[in-house]
């Protein structure tokens, strides 16, 4: 029996201007329980692909099929954003609540605002899992680069996504933080797309990889 296709991009064309199309005829399939690595040079469109999947950017041409449904409008992507978590390359763009605990709670509160008890339980569980007890009341602006990355990842995990899209999750991190993220992905993530320059990191975590050429 064929494995369930979670994400399917067909014949995607994308460019910010009509005369500057840098993604041409791109196809991608992500199956359930698959870890897919996206490798490519700077500017090859790796982040753009992730943003197209989340509906943040609209392709000029092509089909975006997620959870076996064609997605085109903003409303179509609302469901996608509840089930797929995207870790941004720059954590500063993802963290915007004053304290760590509030930022982790931001996603769950949006999804389950009627069930505060559940949100509190979930947030505390994530804080324990990510070992953030000491950081939980700190201001997000006071965190180090590595800590911000971990908190951003914790914020995504708190939403319990079925699929994770990780954009350069270990970029600029020291060995200790990289190891922590690898352990978490190995342990907690079943289906994901990982964008990275780090070939070793991709080889260690992914079942399959796609190389994007300019």
């Amino acid at each position, binding site marked *: 029996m064929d494995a369930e296709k979670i994400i399917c991009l067909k014949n995607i064309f994308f460019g910010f201007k009509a005369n500057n199309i840098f993604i041409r005829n791109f196809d991608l399939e992500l199956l359930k329980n698959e870890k897919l690595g996206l490798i490519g040079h700077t500017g090859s469109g790796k982040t753009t692909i992730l*943003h197209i999947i989340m509906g*943040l950017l609209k392709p000029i041409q092509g089909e975006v099929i997620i959870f076996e449904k064609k997605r085109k409008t903003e409303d179509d992507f609302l469901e996608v954003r509840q089930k797929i978590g*995207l870790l*941004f390359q720059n954590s500063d*763009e993802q963290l915007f*609540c004053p304290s760590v605990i*509030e930022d982790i709670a931001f*996603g769950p*509160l949006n999804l389950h605002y009627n069930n505060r008890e559940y949100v509190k339980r979930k947030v505390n569980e994530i804080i324990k899992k990510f070992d953030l007890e000491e950081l939980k009341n700190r201001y997000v602006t006071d965190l180090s680069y590595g800590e911000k990355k971990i908190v951003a990842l914790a914020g*995504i995990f708190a939403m319990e996504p079925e699929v994770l899209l990780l954009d350069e999750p270990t970029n600029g991190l020291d060995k200790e933080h990289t190891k922590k993220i690898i352990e978490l992905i190995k342990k907690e993530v079943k289906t994901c797309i990982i964008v990275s320059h780090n070939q070793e990191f991709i080889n260690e975590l992914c079942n399959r990889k796609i190389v994007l050429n300019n």
Partner: protein
Amino acid sequence: MLKIKDIDPRIKIILIIIFSFSIGFSQNIKIILYFFIFSLIMLIIIKTDYKKFFKKIFGLNTFIILLWLILPFSIKGEKILKIYFFTITKEGLIETIKISLKYNSIIIITILLLQELNIMHLIHSIRHFYIIPDKISVLIYFYYRYLAETENELKRLLNAVKIRGFIPSTNLHTYKTYANLITHLFIRSYERSQNVYNAMLCRGFNGKIWIWEHFALHKKDLFFLVVNIFIICIIFII
């Protein structure tokens, strides 16, 4: 000493509004003086970092200095002192003293009550009174949050020009550099805001920011409110 942090922010906002209106509409100098004494007593009772506090007070009083330079000479009345062509009148002096005392009483109370209150809690409490729509409160929050970000971005840009030997002077090159710097600042701020918005959408944002911790009204909060209202009433009675 009273730990103002433990008091419910909604109570603090109510008190600031009551206090500001009470003193704002008072015309009797005796009442205004009592209110000022009351704010000084609060300053002693409420735990605060006095160094920071007086720094703020001095900064905010620059406006009052201007007032002292103009108002005592501008109101007609009984002459009490003449300096060259300018005459200080009794009415002008009293009016200036009144405004100075009112202004300082209000800012002392406001600073004392709002200290250690984070912006999220302040907006949250304002939302409880339905004074401003939700969207405006979200905008205020982002304005506050990204003002600091913009400042940091400007510092980064300034450092980037400094390390390449830029020395500002009165020439076209300097003006062009500053123009480029401001343009970059705007572009980066716009890009950052778009990315932050996208990150929010990815985390289920639908126009409303939910609050992590709700306020709980305790007996001590109500006691604090009642005592303060009682003192304000006493000031008016005596």
